[in-house]
């Protein structure tokens, strides 16, 4: 059986970043397995700009952004195989994959999982009504348009104000389709503010907050939808339905980590539906790391890359024996107002001087403090005039401020209370 020091599953931005950082930290025997025909993953179909503002301090398109990482990967001579589909992973780190060349199993000393995510779709939310063609996820419409050159419809309504939907509202308008509106079930938008401005407001596309699609109509092709206002339990309110004639309903209702391979071998899962990881992005299996959208869904690729680098570095440390497993770790906890916290645990003995936490709030809040407490001890408190779920928060804590005593809880505290 072929053996490798490091196998990286997924050659998108997270996978390439992990490979580059592991290589630079001394790991030379690396194999990236990518299921698609190119490196770069989903960025290949993201031809709009807005990538790299944080990481490169300039605005790039998806393909421009990924190209920089492909060049860095190639420059180092890191091996990658395209059109390879990983079918199985075992706890003792064998990786089985298929390609037109054959069926292979590789024994890895360390693994980085970087398999990205997929879109929540009509089936997952059980959208009421019929199931005609024309109800399609925003990312799939983007794939048809940007990679294959076909537009899916001409009268379009969008459910969900996620960023891909917003980007597609503009993209399809520019292609000559009429985008009739966007319905968002929450009382606030779920996309980045800049996308609301540049993709909806600039094109006079109405955003219906606290609305959802209450019926899909059409037996062959979509003929119409009904949208309704929702109550505080997010249920459609009777008598508020309005019919909208359209041939396409784009769904931009969230992304889900594509974490099957780790789920199937019972690696503990976090509320993000990715695996539970340490500060080095190490899962519960020593030597198996996870990063990028397979771990938790990011809004900016810049942060995916940063996370990939942490995982790559973690893998390098593991391979050189510098990442031992300790029984005593700090568990993190999502407290009041917080949806999730990554990492799930901090191994203080392994941690760098700065420990990074990432989290999202459950709903938009104004004038709040974010508090980081370990047991009763206040580690850090930061004032936030506004904080929203669509933007991931990142904070660095000093390792010296932490101890092995008690859970580390992130929570929101009203300003008035203080």
């Amino acid at each position: 059986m072929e053996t490798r020091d490091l196998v990286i599953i997924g050659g998108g931005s997270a996978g390439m970043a992990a490979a580059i950082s592991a290589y630079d930290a001394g790991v030379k025997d690396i194999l990236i397995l990518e299921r698609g025909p190119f490196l770069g993953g989903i960025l290949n179909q993201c031809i709009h700009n807005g990538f790299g503002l944080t990481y490169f301090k300039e605005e790039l398109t998806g393909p421009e952004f990924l190209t920089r990482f492909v060049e860095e990967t190639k420059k180092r001579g890191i091996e990658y195989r395209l059109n390879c589909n990983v079918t199985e992973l075992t706890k003792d780190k064998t990786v089985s994959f298929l390609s037109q060349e054959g069926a292979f199993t590789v024994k890895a000393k360390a693994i980085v999982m970087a398999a990205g995510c997929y879109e929540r779709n009509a089936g997952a939310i059980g959208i009421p009504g019929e199931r005609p063609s024309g109800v399609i996820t925003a990312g799939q419409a983007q794939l048809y348009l940007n990679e294959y050159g076909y537009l899916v419809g001409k009268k379009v309504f969008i459910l969900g104000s996620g960023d891909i939907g917003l980007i597609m509202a503009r993209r399809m308008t520019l292609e000559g389709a009429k985008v009739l509106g966007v319905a968002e079930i929450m009382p606030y938008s779920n996309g980045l503010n800049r996308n609301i401005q540049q993709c909806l407001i600039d094109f006079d596309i109405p955003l219906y907050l606290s609305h959802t699609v209450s019926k899909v109509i059409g037996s062959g092709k979509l003929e119409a939808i009904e949208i309704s206002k929702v109550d505080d339990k997010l249920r459609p309110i009777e008598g508020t339905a309005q019919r909208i004639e359209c041939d396409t309903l784009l769904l931009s209702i969230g992304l889900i980590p594509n974490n099957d391979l780790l789920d199937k071998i019972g690696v503990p899962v976090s509320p993000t539906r990715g695996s539970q990881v340490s500060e080095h992005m190490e899962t519960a299996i020593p030597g198996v790391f996870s990063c990028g959208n397979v771990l938790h869904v990011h809004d900016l690729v810049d942060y995916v890359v940063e996370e990939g680098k942490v995982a790559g570095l973690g893998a390098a440390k593991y391979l050189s024996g510098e990442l031992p497993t300790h029984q005593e770790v700090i568990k993190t906890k999502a407290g009041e107002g917080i949806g999730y916290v990554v990492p799930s645990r901090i191994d203080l003995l392994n941690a760098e001087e700065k420990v990074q936490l990432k989290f999202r709030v459950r709903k938009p809040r104004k004038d709040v403090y974010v508090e980081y407490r370990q047991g009763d001890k206040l580690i850090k408190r930061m004032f936030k005039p506004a904080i929203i779920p669509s933007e991931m928060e990142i904070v660095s804590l000093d390792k010296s401020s932490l101890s092995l005593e008690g859970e580390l809880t992130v929570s929101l505290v009203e300003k008035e209370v203080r």
Partner: protein
Amino acid sequence: MEDIIIIGGGAVGAFIARELSRYDASVLVLEKENDVGDATSMANSAIVHSGYDPVPGTKKARFNVEGNAMFPRLCEELDVEFEQCGSMTLAMEEGQLPMLDELERRGELNGVPVKRLSGEEVLALEPNVSPDVKGALLCPTAGIVNPFTLVAHAFENAIDNGVRLHLGERVMDVKKGEGFFVVKTDKASYEAKVVINAAGVFSQEIAAMVEDIDWKVNPRKGEYYVLDHFAPGFVNHVLFPLPSEKGKGVLVTHTTSGNYLVGPSSEWVDDKDDRSTDSPTLDNVRAQATNMVPNIPFRQQIRVFAGLRATPSTHDFIIEESKAAPGFIHCAGIESPGLVSSPAIGRYVVEELVKGILPLKEKENYNPRVRKYVRIAALDETEKARLIKENPHYGEIVCNCEKVSLGEIEDVLSRSLPALTIKAIKKRTRAGFGKCQGGFCQPKVLFLLAKRLGVSPLEVLYDRKGSEILNKESK
């Protein structure tokens, strides 16, 4: 002049066609949808019922039990996924135990092996059942089947043996001539000595074309949840509640693909084409299911769907030659347990009814088998490597969620049974069936289909007429 025309390409039509294909006869099947098994035969619980439940002495009881016995061999010949996992009918309250006695008695009268289990015995076999369970009726001969490949492979086998199938052709009228029938469709007109009505929920309308009938077929809708294959063994048997007036109730089962199915509801509807789901109904299905199995992980939901049962006003299958129009055979009102009964109905219709009208001579070269199907994901590593060496396309995974290869899709496209739509490919191969619901693989399937059918990608249909996916080329 055809010897026999079958109206309807569902499970009943499929097994009549396959039975007839053993004989020297010209057989034409007319199906209004763009694929076989595209209505009731597709959207059901996919259960091979044991037959303990139908009232003894009915056609339902007879064909269910006979059909069940045919499944192991049938599925082997037709290369269809089938698992004889057994079913349990659960009593959740003490007061329901006498009903289990009644079902046990019915099972014995119907000739079905049954066994009573205590609550503890149920929990030992099915740890995810509610600890409230008081007892169960275990039916070891019950099973689960892939309903999509069951119907498709039966038709493929029938076609390989000489049956002809017209998809997307709707029967508009049937007229009685002198010793033959004229069947008019939206595309052409045919003559046939024998016409078989296997038109599912529309079998009443087809029957009314040749005679005044005193029965009806009323559509009764069932809505379901499909969950992802999150963990094997969450449930191991088909779990039924006690049956009621409204049918067998909401069941919880695994499927042959390792998914889990929860449903169906039971609602009378007016529209025989109603395939819509609604949230209150599904919420109710969920509540009923969690009464039996409390911890069903509904966050693993990947799809909801609805199907229509062809419920007869007579409460039993209507399988007979028309008295007013001899030579015209009704197979109407085939509701549950229709899927399991269909092979036995096919055999009965041919042996007992058609042969009484037309002399049938057996073919010498009848082959009961379809060409073997290969699923790369089901092979061991050595077999995978050998197959990919033979045909590298089996190493290219198109559907990531269900691990369906290009080779498998190309195989389906090369078969005698046409696969004309994206949904047909989905039903045959599972490409697009998984958690992303075709988000990544649908374009690949669409362009493969366009190439195979020799049409523009703009013309490729998802399913029915008008269901094109693409609108125009980009600027």
